[in-house]
């Protein structure tokens, strides 16, 4: 359902570069990150810990504290407005009905002393102010029950009267999602929302999100470390490493033919066979220390196909025949 053309752009991140200023010095967390999310599209952002995916999400919705965060350059354009140039109060108008976010830890994201209905009412209040709605108490209650129903929660009235600790992980996660979607955002940022949930609860939540996307056209940015989860739900994928987008493209294309050696290694590292399968071709080493990144391509010390050029110069973006954008010298046309 992804439309092409400039008109369909909902969010455009352009060359976003961001540092964290810490006691140990400055650390570059995002380097020239560009991303487009079209209306009604689900975009997956995958990467291992420290790749900058959560920072990117928080940066888009303007929740990074400064200090330590320091935006060096780039722009985040949402419906034609550069969010980075807006002041605090102007920006808050975009949150909620514009951009919503669901955080990883539902237990920490929900206020422990509020019942579900009180929490949801907070979100409805935001919507009411933004759209000057006139809602009676009864209509509000109906709206809450409806939204929990849509998320296929059993006994919505019962859930509304419960505190977060009385709900299961899957239920809590859906309450957090309810809080975000009750504001009818145009873009929903989901940060590791299925991490730590059992497989079929995870599957249910993915189904619910996909269904929501089809019914309401809410665009989604789905952040996860789990490549399989991301590929199940997203139309397009962004693969991040050391604060850079290493590969970007249509999910099916990346699944069938990952172009960047890092993406290839990520897929290969997922166990698929039975116990008699050969050892997993894992990339050597661990996620890089952002304070001591190598010169040239940031993946070069772990890359099996490394060339001299990779160690000297950081590759620019190359486009594959299928239209994926890849940060790798192997795709340079000679």
């Amino acid at each position, binding site marked *: 359902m992804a439309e092409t053309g400039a008109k369909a752009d909902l969010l455009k991140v352009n060359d976003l570069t961001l540092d964290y200023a810490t006691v140990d010095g400055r650390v570059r967390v995002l380097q020239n990150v560009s991303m487009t999310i079209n209306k009604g599209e689900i975009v997956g952002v995958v990467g*291992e*810990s420290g790749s900058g995916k959560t920072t990117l999400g928080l940066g888009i919705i303007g929740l990074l504290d400064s200090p330590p965060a320091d935006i060096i350059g780039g722009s985040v354009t949402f419906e034609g407005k550069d969010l980075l140039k807006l002041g605090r109060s102007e920006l808050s108008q975009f949150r909620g009905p514009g951009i919503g976010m669901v955080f990883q830890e539902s237990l920490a994201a929900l206020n422990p002393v509020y019942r579900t209905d009180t929490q949801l009412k907070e979100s409805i209040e935001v919507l009411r102010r933004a759209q000057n709605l006139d809602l009676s108490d009864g209509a509000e209650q109906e709206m809450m029950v409806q939204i929990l129903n849509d998320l*296929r*929660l*059993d006994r919505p009235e019962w859930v509304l009267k419960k505190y977060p600790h009385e709900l*299961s*992980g*899957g239920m809590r996660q859906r309450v957090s999602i309810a809080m975000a979607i009750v504001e009818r955002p145009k873009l929903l940022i989901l940060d590791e929302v299925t991490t*730590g949930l*059992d*497989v*079929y*609860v*995870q*599957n*249910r939540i*993915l*189904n619910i999100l*996909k269904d929501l996307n089809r019914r309401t056209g809410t665009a989604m940015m789905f952040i996860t*470390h*789990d*490549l*399989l*989860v991301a*590929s*199940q*739900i997203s139309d397009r994928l962004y693969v991040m490493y050391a604060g850079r987008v290493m590969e970007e493209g249509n999910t099916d294309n990346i*699944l069938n033919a990952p172009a960047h050696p890092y993406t290839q*290694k*990520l*897929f*290969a*590292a*997922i*166990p*698929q*066979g*039975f*116990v008699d*399968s050969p*050892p*997993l*071709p*894992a*990339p*050597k080493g*661990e*996620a890089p220390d952002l304070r001591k990144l190598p010169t040239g391509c940031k993946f070069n010390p772990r890359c099996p196909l490394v060339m001299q050029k990779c160690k000297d110069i950081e590759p620019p973006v190359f486009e594959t025949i299928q239209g994926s954008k890849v940060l790798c010298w192997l795709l340079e046309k000679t």
Partner: protein
Amino acid sequence: MSNIVEVNNLTVSFVVRGGNLLLFERGGGMADVVNDVSFNVREGETFGLAGETGSGKSVIAWALVGLMKPRSGSIKVLGKEIDFGKKADVTYLRHNIGIVFQDPVGSLNPRLQVKEIIKEGLIAAKTFDRREYDKRIEEVVDLVGLRKSSLEAYPRELSGGEKQRVSLARAIVVPRKMVVLDEPTSSLDVSVQAQVLNTLKELKAKLNLSYFFITHDINVMKYMSDSLGILYYGKLLEVGSTYDVVTNPKHPFTMRLMSNVPGLKRTRLQQEEGRLTEQGSSATGCVYRKICPRVFEKCSNLPPMFDLGSNHLAACFLYDKAS
């Protein structure tokens, strides 16, 4: 193949009062968090235990290393039944079975260097001569794939993967028959997980170890284990060779679990209809009957394990030949 560990009708209970678990208090009722579980771990084999959060996987792991006393049932190690009241028996258990915990941060003492952490395993076992400690520690560090330089490091200076290797080194520094691995890679990135899984497999072959492997990741489970048990609310619902249980699941819960596993070749979401009551257990009869799609009258009784041939067992009345 002989059995390293035989677990028969294991039941572990926590004390509860007013519906709340009381881990450290006496009095009140008992809740069976592991209920009548039986399985064997054969020599050189990896036995995998899968189940959702709160199903009691870790409690079984704790019982296997004597951190939790069974209320009833027995654990036999190399044919010897362990009397959990006898200190000598628990020591015997721990000499033969080591453990790697899930949380690499919480399970390593932050104030000790890596070599001291590993040495604690040796001190506790009392089977090595003190003069051999350093040599043994170096050997084992090499085995698990840690750099020699990390011996002097503190846990905070290590990455997640390295921390789990330290835990593993501590578990095998005294030669053991079996290692209990409680979600050893669930906190690691996929690329690091792959490295650790490779090391685990190499070690197992090299030292002729058996593993008791716990994970909720079915892809990892498939890749690691020879046999597989499926746990649900403290009950073992199905057990068999991993291949049989994954490709031909028999219990309705296992079927549902397996159909939801994402794979590289099957990336389409499985549609599930209806309302989501994802959790629920029944106090009487089959634990799964409250949400089982194939429930019938008989399920109000407690199903025994039905033998489906070739060591494949399922606790489900669908396989009751008498009906």
